[in-house]
């Protein structure tokens, strides 16, 4: 299988789907000639033209709103938010509109809208450009939220998102774009709502997604050197949650650690823990734990940022404390 970057995998997914489906068009800042700050839309304007690859003004509420309207009128818009942090200026269109219009219409309309964006820290971009909002968006009924960790998952999930006919927030990570991985050739999809065991292990289950999957895998390798075999589950989709895969794993390992980059408070870690205690309380031998960003805004200086965001060493320390 060819080895390509995460950014290229996304670019391929967009290109292939746009060739196959004329309803798909793109809107976002600098996505055209420039091909996007992270190069995900590279060369798409030259292939598909200005009509289908539209550079927008800095009007996130406006163009997400246009996406909602175009989706209701039969198109399959993909809107790009340059940084997840800017979802806040478009929050009404995402949460009050895209997520709810179908329901409020009793099912008469559908909103096949994909909102692509990237999030996360680790680059010193500061408090307004480093946030992770998946735990917030997972609170919103009517949104599907995916956050792939690998190029192959990114491509397969983006194709699924474009075909699924519902509002999807498709979350990329700024530090993943240049990571590489094998990606199958030809058309394939990854199912929305299906987690994957990225590493098998018997001693504890680490649930992660997006970039935290890579950190979890790295931690697992180091733990293995000390004789601790961690199973690493990559959620890939954070809403809906694949509890089956989580529970199957936890029933085997009896230990659960959830790692995510959004803040701990009311985060997916808490949610997964609450569900495991609801659905399989007998499964756990030690209390479940979660690791998220600490409860402060994300600072810029490296030492500070590292103190706030989950690190491999934090995962290892927590894991060791559990087995």
């Amino acid at each position, binding site marked *: 299988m060819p080895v390509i970057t995460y950014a290229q995998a996304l670019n391929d997914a967009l290109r292939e789907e746009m060739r196959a489906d004329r309803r798909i068009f793109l809107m976002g800042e600098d996505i055209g000639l420039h091909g996007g700050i992270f190069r995900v839309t590279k060369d798409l304007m030259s292939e598909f033209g200005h009509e289908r690859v539209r550079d927008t*003004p800095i009007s996130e509420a406006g163009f997400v*709103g246009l996406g909602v309207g175009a989706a209701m009128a039969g198109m399959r818009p993909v809107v790009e938010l340059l940084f997840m942090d800017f979802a806040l200026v478009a929050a009404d269109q995402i949460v009050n509109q895209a997520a709810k219009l179908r329901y409020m*219409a*009793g099912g*008469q*309309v559908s909103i096949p809208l994909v909102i692509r964006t990237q999030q996360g820290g680790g680059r010193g971009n500061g408090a307004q450009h480093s946030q992770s909002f998946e735990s917030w968006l997972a609170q919103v009924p*009517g949104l599907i939220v995916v956050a792939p960790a690998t190029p192959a998952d990114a491509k397969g999930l983006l194709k699924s998102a474009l075909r699924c006919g519902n509002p999807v927030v498709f979350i990329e990570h700024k530090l993943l774009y240049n990571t590489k991985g094998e990606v199958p050739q030809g058309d394939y999809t990854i199912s929305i709502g299906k987690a994957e065991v990225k590493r098998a292990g018997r001693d504890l289950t680490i649930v992660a997604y997006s970039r935290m999957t890579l950190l979890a895998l790295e931690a697992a390798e180091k733990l293995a050197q000390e004789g601790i075999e961690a199973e690493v589950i990559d959620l890939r989709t954070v809403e809906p949650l694949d509890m089956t895969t989580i529970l199957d794993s936890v029933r085997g390992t009896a230990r659960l650690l959830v790692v995510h980059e959004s803040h701990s408070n009311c985060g997916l870690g808490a949610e997964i823990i609450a569900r495991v205690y609801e659905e399989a309380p007998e499964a756990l031998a030690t209390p479940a734990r979660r690791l998220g960003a600490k409860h402060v805004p994300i600072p810029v200086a490296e030492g500070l940022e590292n103190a706030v965001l989950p690190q491999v060493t934090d995962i290892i320390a927590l894991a060791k404390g559990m087995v």
Partner: protein
Amino acid sequence: MALALERLPEAYRQMQIIRKFEEAIRNLYSQGRIRGSFHPCVGQEGVAVGASWALRADDFLSCTYRGHGHALAKGLSPRAAMAEMLGKATGCSKGKGGSMHFTDASVGLLGANAIVGAGIPHAAGAALAMQLQGGGGTNGRIALAAFGEGAVNQGVFHETLNLIAIWKLPVILVCENNLYSEMTPSHETTAAAAQIAAGPIAAASPQTYQRAAAYGIAARQVDGNDVETMYLAVEEAAGRARAGEGATYIEAMTYRLWGHMMGDPEVYRTKEEVSQARENEPIVRLGRRLQGLGWTEAGLARLEAEAEAVIADAVQFAENSPLPKPEDAFTDVFA
């Protein structure tokens, strides 16, 4: 083209249907049989009928919580609308949307919206879809966004106007200027270009159409209580939009005869102001016009009675309809 003379009685009947619809709701509401809030459009029927009638059935429309008139004029069935008000399974949204979210995809009604300004980009997006599907033309179909004058102070209004202008979208923007935003006179909260004197229609009102002009969008103010004027303005705008000439902003001056919603004590205006406005309201106006064209009072009363019957039927239908089942709450989230 102007609204054909032979359609004026039908327009009168349509406005009466809207009026009776709102009256029936007020009645049901006061009996405690309707939940949530209700924002009547009584006095604004001229805008609703003039605007919706100038559209084709397959054109798109987005409107607001005060949009019962637009929805009915665009073709939403009074039965489905009334059943929705009563929270019945036969409602246009199966009881899920209620008074503020009337939707009928079959007549291009994208939906009423309860967030001020939020529906404007939806109409623009539908227009963009038509432009794309028409390969740069409009595919024959266009979109209209109706909103109150208070919406011009909401950010998404501006963002959308700019997008409409730069992409020459086939949109008609209808600002229903009824002088008030909830309980606040809009001129107190809405700045306008200093150099342009207040227009002839409502001296104290903000000139919201100047905002649109700042984006290079053709913009004008019209008398929204005159259904023929309204129709003509939207008809012309639709022609421009279909011809690929871009958007038009129409500021339709009108007046909300009832309070902002049920229970509004109306401390912000005088009784005299309201009774003066009653002389100028769209149904009275069209009635006078029809009389000028030879209609008798009896003839008008017959049209009114027909409207009454339509609404009585709708109420009966709604009352006889079943409630949704609790488990229905969990469907219609995803396609």
